[in-house]
């Protein structure tokens, strides 16, 4: 049950999407999101869907895995769609008590649902094809200029990569502790809200203790290897943009431009 969490999961591979520079992928994801929010018509949405499908095809990620990522937010998607369905003013199609469905409402609801789903699938495509280390490397490099105004960029990205690294470990640990307490008759599934909250204490206390112990051990291990922050630290894999990065970026920029121009002409 807990093992189904896919947050930050990475599927190793050798596709073009895997080999792109992480910075390119982060930039592309940003462009993709901007374009998605500028798209307003069937034509521009069609363009975006085509782009997403191409991305999935190129990456070789199973479409099933992407759809699975939508599961936790399905409620938000439905909620937004329903709100838009009833509260968009325009040409009334069906009226029922205070609720009315308009033609514009149907369109907006449909586009809203599509937009959120595509937003999530697009960002999942990034984490599925980029290892957490590459991701934080890319982020650190992109945010590099902020160092000039004393933002601790290196420390932030180090924290992020450690957090990502320990998600699976903590999930496994939680599973183990839950089993151990169940073996002593702990009951997590029945009772009212207060009972259930109380039932969490035997899980949370050992979990916190082990998280602190791990953090302590990790800090010592890092210090033993002379870690002292980002000052003067060099990288094993220095990021370099290659021809393919520029090509893909140009293609994305063209698509963003197309979507913007289409929006301008109200298409």
């Amino acid at each position, binding site marked *: 049950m807990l093992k189904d969490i896919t947050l930050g999961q990475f599927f190793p591979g050798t596709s073009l999407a895997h080999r792109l520079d992480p910075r390119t992928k982060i930039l592309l994801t940003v462009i993709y999101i901007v374009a998605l929010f500028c798209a307003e018509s069937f034509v521009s949405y069609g363009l975006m869907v085509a782009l997403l499908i191409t991305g999935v095809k190129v990456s070789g990620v199973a479409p099933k895995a992407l759809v699975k990522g939508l599961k936790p937010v399905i409620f938000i998607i439905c909620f937004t769609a329903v709100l838009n369905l009833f509260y968009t003013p325009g040409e009334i199609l069906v009226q029922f008590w205070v609720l009315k469905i308009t033609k514009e409402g149907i369109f907006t609801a449909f586009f809203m649902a599509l937009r959120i789903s595509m937003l999530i699938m697009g960002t999942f495509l990034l984490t599925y094809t980029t290892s957490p280390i590459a991701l934080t490397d890319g982020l650190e490099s992109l945010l590099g200029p902020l160092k000039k105004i004393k933002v601790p960029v290196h420390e932030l990205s180090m924290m992020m990569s450690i957090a990502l690294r320990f998600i699976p470990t903590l999930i496994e640990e939680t599973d183990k502790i839950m089993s*151990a307490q169940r073996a002593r008759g*702990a009951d997590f599934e029945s009772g009212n809200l207060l009972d259930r909250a109380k039932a969490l204490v035997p899980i949370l206390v050992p979990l916190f203790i082990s998280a602190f112990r791990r953090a302590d051990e990790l800090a010592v291990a890092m210090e033993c290897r002379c870690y002292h922050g980002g000052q003067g630290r060099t990288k094993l894999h220095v990021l370099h943009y290659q021809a393919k990065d520029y090509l893909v970026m140009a293609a994305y920029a063209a698509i963003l431009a197309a979507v913007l121009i289409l929006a301008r002409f109200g298409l």
Partner: protein
Amino acid sequence: MKPIIRVENLTHTYGQDTPFCRSAVDGVSLDIMEGEFLGIIGHTGSGKSTLIQHLNGLLRPTSGTIYLDGRDIWADPKKIRDVRFQVGLVFQYPEYQLFEETVYKDISFGPKNMGLSEQEIDRRVRDAAAFVGLDEGLLDKSPFELSGGQKRRVAIAGVIAMEPRVLILDEPSAGLDPAGRRSLLENIRSYHRQKGTTVVMVSHSMDEVAENVDRIIVLADAGVVMSGTPHEVFSRAEELVAVGLNVPQVTRVAMELRRRGVEIDPAVYTVAELRKALSALKGGKASC
């Protein structure tokens, strides 16, 4: 003796319908007899831990059945908690599950979940603490102030306090120093002797199992490969080595002697037995 737990054709597959699908236990059948001290051995990844989590209903079999006193434990899934009170399971490194403010409260967690009276809980906590060799004075301390070995004892007492009919321990001595190891095993042995309950000890240390148990079940590659008394199992020492397990050091000495042409029973597994076998041999030689 009649079986208290019977496992029939148990298979457990992790991650079914995914590319990571893997059977950790595959078609295992075995009986655990009332009152016996059973050892389950197998190397890492042989399915030991998965198997024992089925015995108290923490995992549900992919296929196959577990009987407790002849009744399918999953016949009524709502009653699975009762099974967990009757089959106590101590996990590997159980000290990581401690959470209460005092040792006393932590040990009483299980009995409290059983809904026992205050008085009965008190008796069980004190009994359990005595069995694992915890001083009465430690009961009011925080479990987090104790040493590693003492924490382990508190966690084991937490399961013993439920007074289960079967006590299962997964690698109870892992990570302890030799002295702590010896005294903990001695505590478990005397618990078995005095209470007469069924004890199942899972381990990969042959020496530990050889000295303590009545019967051994050997697991390898998700299945049972051998079962019998220590003498029967260790007389097939070569097969044990073939499935990647160690044999007790004493048995290894005997095997090596046999290989060099000395007529000696290869199934000796305690120091006392080896001494007897060797002095018998010496007596024979002196006569020629």
